[in-house]
Every structure is written in C-alpha cells, then in structure tokens.
C-alpha cells in the first residue's frame, strides 16, 4: 500500500523540551522536499512539566494521528516518556532515546521519582531498535543546553528512517532559526555520528 512512502514519526517528552519546535522543523524539511505533512500535538495547559507528544506523518494520508504499532520511529526526549509511548512504535521500529531523566515536578511531594535504567532495560528487551544517547550531556559539551533537540533530531536523521539527510536538515534549519543560533545549531546537528 502506501507503507513505503508514508513515514510515521512520534516525538515525546516533557513540556519545555522543544518537542513542538523539533516537530515543526521536521515538517519544514519534508515540505521542502515536496512531501505532504500532517501532525497533531497533545499539549497541556499553560503550565509546564506535563507529558507532551507530537504525531508527525510525512507522505499521503488522511488523518494527523496514527494508531498504536504504526510509528516507524520514536524520538523520545525522556526515558520514562519513551516507555509510556512505546505502544505506538511498530515492531522492529527505531527508538531514539535521551537517557537523561526528567523527574515529575511533584516528585518531591509524592516521592514519585524513578530509576531511568529500569526504563532503558525495558526498552532494550521490547523488540525495537534502541539508539540511546545522553543528549543533555552532549548539548552541555557543545555549550548550549538548548541544542538538545537538534542533537535528538540529528540522531533520528542519522538512523536513516527519515526521508532526508542531515545536510538537508541543516539547510532548512538555517532558514527557520534566528541568525544568532545558526552556528551553535549547526555544531549540534553535526556532532552526532552514531
């Protein structure tokens, strides 16, 4: 069917990590190639800290969201959120996961913290291809924690699942971000080699 030309992408994480922005950049990159794009976001209220997902589809389709087991790739900005949304990833699909945990804002009050290594172990034995990286640490190395989303995007592009390469993303990024952030974002995009 359309399977070979439709790419389903799920981005997930926590409010404030730049997920919506990353989703928009992928959409822009796909549109630049002439592909139709649809997406849907679940975002909470004005407050930060809740779970955020973005469904993104490149290619011909009717709806902005897809069902469970239909994502070709999941770009998870947080390990527990990766586990939460794992059901959307198809068997053998690719999971790009930032291993750096974000504890719930209520953890201090309710003791609702968790161990990220448990999440990573679960992902490893769930029949998907896991590409784990500490994007937070890499971003800090580059010198700007805010480039974390570029690093995640670069890892996703390098996995070969998205229908464009890193040079194409770089070109589109240059056109969409403010001039003063271009250099640091370029550095982030080309820092990932996995």
């Amino acid at each position: 069917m359309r399977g070979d030309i439709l790419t389903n992408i799920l981005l997930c994480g926590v409010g404030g990590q730049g997920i919506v922005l990353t989703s928009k950049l992928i959409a822009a990159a796909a549109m630049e190639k002439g592909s139709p794009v649809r997406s849907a976001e679940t975002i909470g209220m004005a407050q930060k800290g809740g779970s955020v997902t973005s469904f993104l589809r490149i290619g011909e389709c009717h709806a902005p969201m897809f069902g469970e087991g239909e994502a070709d790739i999941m770009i998870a900005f947080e390990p527990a959120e990766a586990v939460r949304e794992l059901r959307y990833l198809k068997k053998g699909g690719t999971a790009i996961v930032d291993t750096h945990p974000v504890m719930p804002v209520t953890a201090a009050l309710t003791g609702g913290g968790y161990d990220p290594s448990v999440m990573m172990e679960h992902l490893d034995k769930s029949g998907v291809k896991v590409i784990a990286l500490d994007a937070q640490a890499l971003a800090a190395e580059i010198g700007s924690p805010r480039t974390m989303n570029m690093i995640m995007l670069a890892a996703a592009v390098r996995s070969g699942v998205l229908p464009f390469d890193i040079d194409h993303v770089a070109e589109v990024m240059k056109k969409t971000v403010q001039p003063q952030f271009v250099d640091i974002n370029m550095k982030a995009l080309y820092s990932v080699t996995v």
Partner: protein
Amino acid sequence: MLPFPGKDDDMHKEYLMGNAAIAKGALAAGLNVITGYPGTPSTEVLETAAKAVPDIYVEWSVNEKAALEVAAGASYCGARSMVTMKQVGLNVASDPLMSLAYVGVEGGMIIMVADDPGPISSQTEQDTRTFAAYSKLPCFDPSSVEEAFAMVADAFELSEKYHTPVIFRPTTRICHGYASIDVPDKDEWYVNKPKGFERDTSRWVIFPGLSYRAHMAIEERNRALSADSYKGNLIIEGSRKGIASHGISAAYVREITDGMEDAPTLFKVATPFPFPEDRAVEFLSSVDEVMCIEELDPVIERELTYLCGKHHLPTVIRGRLTGDVHTAGENTPTYVKDVIYRYLGIACPEEDVPTDAPKLPVRPPVLCAGCPHRASFYAVKVAMRGKKTVFCGDIGCYTLGNAQPLDMVDTCLCMGAGVNIAQGIGRIEPDRYCFAFVGDSTFFASAVTGAMNAVYDQADMTLVVLDNSTTAMTGHQPHPGTGRTMMGEVVEKIDIEAVLHGAGVETVVTVDPFDLEKAVNTVRCIADLEGVKAIIFKSPCAVITKPDKPYVIDKDKCVECRACIRRIGCPAIVISDGKTVIEPSICVGCGLCGQTCHLKAIVPSEQ
C-alpha cells in the same frame, strides 16, 4: 462570486494548524469582524485572524454572549463576521443565539464552536451538532484541516444565501491538527464591503408575530437544505456493509479501510444539520448494515435509524445506541480500527504487549513555580486553619489549587459559578465561612452579576478575586482589566475594586499575596465581617513576568523538615541526593517559600 478561483499558480503551500486554517479561510472569504472569548481548543482562530488588523475588526469580548452580539450587529450591516468559542461557551451565548436564529442576518455570519471529545480540556462532552439541531441552524463539521479551510467560504455563502447564522464546529483534533495545505495568495482573497445598516423594524425587532412567521420559514428552509446536499457529504462506494462517520473519525475510517479487499461503503456527513436526507437514503439503500462511528452524541445514528423507519428500509443501524461503540470519550485511530475490524470480522493481529512494563511517573499539571495563586491559596489556608469553611473554585489556572498540598478547591462548576454556589451553601449552613475564588478574566466574564446577586440578597461570604492581570490558562489574552485590546490600543482599564464598590460590596481590600503576613491578616479580619466582602489578591501571572533572582536553601540552616514542600508544593523545590534544593532553572524568585520556612533557611541567591 466565489472567493477564489483555485488556479494552482495563485496558490502557495502553508503548514497550518486547523484553527489557523479556519482563520485564513475566513480572511480569504472576506472576513470583516471576528469576536470571541478564549477557550481550548478554539482560541487560535481569533489569534491568527488578529494578524490581519487593521484590515478587520478583532475583539476578545468579555464573554461569549457579548461576542456573539457584536458579531451579529456587524452582520446586520452586511459585514462577514465570525464569533469563536469552545462548546461550553455556546451555553453562555445561547440566549442571543436562539433569537438570532429567528431574526437572521444580512452579511454572512459563522458561529465557530470547537467541541472537545475526551474531554481533553473541558467540563462537558456536549455536542454542538445537537445544539445546531436545537437552534435549527445549519451546521458544518470538517474532517480535515484542508476541508476546514475550504468549508469556511461555503459556510459564508450559505449564510448569506439564506440570511441565517451558521454553526461551524470542528473538534480538538481538527483545531489542533496541522497539515500542509494549498492557500490562495492574498491578492486572490475576496474582499467584502459592508453596505451598512438598513432600518426595518419588521426584520430586526423580534416580536411574537415575527417569530411565528420566521419559525415557518426556518422549517421550510431546513427541509430544502436536507434535500439539497452539501458537496462535503460524501459516499465512497464499496461492499454491502456500510460505515457512517464524521469529522476526524471519518479521516480515521477512510485511512483504515483504504485499500482493503472488499472495502465497506463509506458515508461521511459534513452537514449534520439539516441532515442530508437524500444522500443518506442513497447510502442506506446501497448497504445491508451500517456501523456509525461518532464522537459525542449519536447524531448520525439517530438520523439514519429514523430515516430507515420513514423510508421503510431494512438496513440495520448499529453504533453507540446498540452498544457497538463506546458512549463517551474520544475516538482514537486505534479504537476506530478495533471497531471496524470487529464489525468486518477481521482478526486483529495478536499484540504481544509486554506485561512487565515498569511503573511510570505521573506528571499532573501543577501551578507554575512562582504562581501568585499559590500564595493566595496558602494565605487563606493559613488564615482559616481550624475554622469551618468551604472554598468554592472557578474556571482558570486556579482550579489547580485543588491539588495537594494546597487542597483549596471544594467545588468547581462552570465559569463564574463559585460566588453563587458559596451563597447557596451559606444559606443552608450559616455557621460556615463561605469563600469564592474567581480569576480576573472570569470575574468580568460572568462573576459580576453573581456578585450583585449575592450583595442584594444579603449573602454572608468572602469573594476572593485572584487578579493576575491576564487570561492565563488559555494563553494570556487581554480582558477589560488589562488595559489593552486586540486592535492594539492602550485603553483605560476597568478597575475591579471600583466595579465591586459599584455593585454594592462595601469592603474591598487589595493586597499582594506574596506579602504573606499581611495577606493572612487581611483574610482573618475580612472573613469575620458580615455580608459580602471582597479581597483582591493582585500579582501578575508568573509566566508573563520577568523572573527575579532564584532563591537558595542555606545548607547550614536547613534541617530537612521539608515543611516548604508540604506547605506550598512549588515545583522548583526538589529533592536531589536526599537534600532539599531549589532548582535554579525553574525558580522565578517569588520568595513565598522563604516566608514559609520558620528557620529562615531559604534566601535570595547572591547572583
């Protein structure tokens, strides 16, 4: 007089949110006036249209009723107007709506009402399609971003052709979905020139005689519309098994059945009222059985069942009324697939869901770090400790005051209800201290009348206005207390204190909630006065305020009692390696925690 010819070279691609597509569709169709009251998921329609100021008039009105009336007045003059709101907003606007349906309009008028299956961010799962039938107004129900864009122009045309307001009702997944769509270039947009108001009392003044004649005309028009089906009511031919659907569910159905061997016959209903009878009968005659996949009310299912009776058709109608589809909540792609597979007898591939999934952290929404509502709630909590109280809440960010550790919201019903709920409770239990908490935007929207009611009818209660100088929950829209309008004007603010005095509230005290001691003392004094009295806690929303230096916890003084966490629950106070610390990237330096620590261990940082 089609607004745009649709030649490819006059078009360009844009990646638009559904709400933005609705706004652009309206602008391309000659929109002159747009009004509304913010509410998820409808808000971005007006915000997108506002980019066309000063070419059009844009207003965030005080509430939905006022918004609808402003748009109607403009339309009386021949303007193309749109009023936007969420589904519960339509309840507020229903008084003018029901009458306007009889009086009619001159320029095209669209009532854009966003429904919220789930509900994801609403109090109710009401269905505006049902409201359309009740008010007898034509209703459009888009199933994709691009259809929403194109449908707006059709809605204006229909409105003008029949001199009636029309309802346009997308749901959350259309409003907040994105798609790359073709948009006509700006020089292709239709420009509407209002011809001005023409006096005609037999038309614009509603009287029983007029209503009687109008009612007959409406029924006749709706019969005609039922027979003359809108092009968006689509039949896609297939097997003798049918699926009827609408909105986003129709997109899911289409996608799931696309390319299926022996695919079912599909019927997509784009105008649920007046129901497209001729098209529906054509569909019903081509199938033996129909599964209705709908969100909110079983509108299509009821209509099809009725039509089978009326036309003596043997077709079996299934859906929510027959227990085949769930009766509440959103239809997800996964759920729709499940329903279709069951209906068509297709085996679902075995899911080997791992059963050992680790326990996941919950991330409930909380008041932001530095939110002034936290300070206000805490002040009242401390002041009233040990007393018999009730805290009536309202709609806004401050509904989150119900969460632990504040636990300061005992009731929440609808916009502006808290003040009169408190009044009612006080009538039955005079020994209870009754408090009503209301935000500034909600105060103007619908608590002013409630306050007058409480004063005049001799209630005994404390009204607490949480004035953060914005409409925070929906993304910081202006309201009469902010001093700016959507037209970009800086105007005289309407003073809440003066309004309360005018409404007969004698004691009104304004206090900064971050001055904790003063705030607590104020509450203590005021709560014991007789009659209706008000406290205005005034401090701006933390999200739109420049953060101060973060606070730090002095390691030498802190004894790890964690009282700060248990008392106020600010998300910036975290436990790291067993120690209570303040996360500097989250803290905005409001200083509330410092005032709750009896050892004075929390202080402003040096940086």
